[in-house]
């Protein structure tokens, strides 16, 4: 049984690349997740930590903390093959905490007036890629797949249903557009509040679009348009009151 399972799983796996490409693939895969994450990590460090540490207000402590962050990242790369997940966790926390110390001892360099929009977006992208690469490395080597259930092969996840992609892509574009707003706010607290609200609004938009897309595939049963309107009546009435109130307020003003 197991032989048949292993043979079926090996048939399902994609063929490994051949020749030089295969050796390179195996070599990069053997490096581990911290090594793969160190590239976007170094980019995030260069975009958001180093400019703060070596800015006009950055003191010696900020510079030392920034260097410690870089050393923690490199130590994770070196230590992961030997100590595994312990080195990965230590590297992650060392890098993040040392970066946080740099930002906290030189907060003036983080003021929105000192960070232009492309610079801020590049830093956000770098940290997001670092987190993604560390949590889910793109190359994991040719190791045996871990089975949760030995008895039978697990069914593959469903592919994205036809017609769902425009919903998700559209929502992602809208969420990205929301991140472009409010990069020239003067106060630190308000700038952080705008970023927080933009993030929450983007997530809410993506969640709503995904819910609407998924709901199309579920069996609607006998639920009529009238029943669905009645079900969402409370929220629609609240929305109507809000829009009417806003209109009256605008006319009055």
């Amino acid at each position: 049984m197991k032989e048949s399972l292993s043979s079926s799983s090996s048939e399902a796996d994609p063929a490994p690349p051949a020749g030089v490409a295969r050796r390179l693939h195996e070599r990069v895969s053997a490096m581990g997740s911290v090594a793969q994450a160190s590239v976007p990590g170094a980019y995030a460090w260069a975009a958001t930590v180093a400019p703060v540490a070596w800015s006009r207000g950055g003191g010696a402590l900020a510079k030392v903390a920034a260097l410690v962050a870089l050393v923690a990242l490199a130590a994770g790369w070196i230590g992961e093959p030997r100590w595994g997940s312990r080195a990965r966790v230590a590297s992650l926390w060392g890098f993040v905490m040392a970066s946080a110390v740099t930002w906290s001892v030189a907060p003036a360099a983080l003021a929105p007036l000192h960070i232009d929009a492309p610079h801020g977006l590049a830093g956000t992208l770098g940290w997001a890629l670092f987190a993604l690469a560390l949590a889910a490395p793109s190359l994991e080597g040719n190791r045996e797949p871990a089975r949760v259930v030995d008895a039978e092969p697990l069914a593959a996840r469903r592919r994205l249903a036809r017609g769902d992609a425009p919903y998700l892509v559209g929502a992602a574009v809208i969420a990205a557009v929301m991140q472009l707003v409010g990069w020239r706010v003067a106060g630190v607290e308000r700038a952080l509040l705008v970023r927080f609200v933009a993030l929450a609004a983007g997530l809410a938009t993506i969640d709503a679009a995904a819910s609407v897309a998924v709901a199309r595939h579920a069996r609607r049963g006998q639920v009529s348009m009238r029943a669905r309107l009645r079900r969402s009546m409370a929220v629609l009435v609240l929305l109507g009151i809000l829009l009417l109130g806003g209109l009256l307020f605008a006319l009055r003003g």
Partner: protein
Amino acid sequence: MIQLPDALAISLVVGASCAFILGELALADAEDLRAIYWLAVGTACVRAAVHMGRPGAKT
């Protein structure tokens, strides 16, 4: 073929996005009352879209 409730739900999501962006702009301009208003409109639109699109038992 998009059904009418789905079209309404999509319109509500788009409306919510516009309201959220207006809320962010108001927040960036330090117009807190206007920001709260648009964020509330956006939240109501999102809730209405999810309720509208969600299949379920007959009520």
